[in-house]
């Protein structure tokens, strides 16, 4: 499950559909040593900023660098936790409010093996992955997304 040599492409053009997530869950049914999964889903939130409403986030990236960083993040998790699988996906392009733009999936033998990992991985992605979000408002103006420690 852990093919350390291959750098996977985390990027998906457009939103991450519930169908995609379902297929990802389904593909783990054959791995019968897994007892626990945790999934994080980041959904584009329709924030209200100075009376204007966020209707979408347009994501771009330096894809190669971001893929390498996510690969390194995964490696470091595999080195430090007894997990079986980890997957990271991130959207590119204009993702509407209500749609999912980030999907992190971790699986291990017991629940205690996977707690806290989603938080760790997402923090690392937000800090280190060369991805850029442009928040688009309902009046077609925009602002550049700024990451913080809680959002």
């Amino acid at each position, binding site marked *: 499950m852990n093919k350390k040599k291959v750098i996977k492409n985390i990027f998906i053009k457009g939103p991450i559909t519930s169908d995609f997530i379902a297929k990802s869950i389904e593909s783990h049914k054959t791995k019968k040593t897994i007892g626990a999964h945790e999934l994080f889903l*980041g959904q584009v939130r329709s924030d209200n900023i100075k009376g204007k409403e966020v209707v979408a986030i347009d*994501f*771009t*990236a*330096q894809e*190669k*660098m*971001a893929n*390498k960083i996510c690969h390194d993040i995964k490696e470091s998790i595999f080195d430090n936790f007894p997990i079986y699988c980890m997957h990271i996906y*991130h959207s590119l392009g204009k993702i509407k409010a209500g749609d999912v733009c*980030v999907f992190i999936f971790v699986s291990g033998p017991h629940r205690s093996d996977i707690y806290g990992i989603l938080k760790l991985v*997402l923090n690392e*992605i*937000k*800090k*280190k*992955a*060369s*991805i*850029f*979000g*442009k928040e688009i408002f309902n009046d077609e103006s925009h602002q*550049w*997304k*700024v*990451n913080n420690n809680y959002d």
Partner: protein
Amino acid sequence: MDYTVRYYGQIAELVDSNEEFIFSEADTIQKFIKDLIQIHPILKGKTFQVAQNNQIKREGALIRKAVIDLLPQFSGG
């Protein structure tokens, strides 16, 4: 040297371009940024990082013929 420079996110918006070919005698990151700001004064005081060969470089020699990426603050996730 002709450098291929790629711009991302807010930086691409500021210079109104995703990719440019820039001639510069600079052989270090610092010197190159100086040249770049002369060409694009709007970048003065802006926060960005420089990468070559998909690696962030804070200082030191420029790699000849390698594309230069200009990356604003990350805001994925």
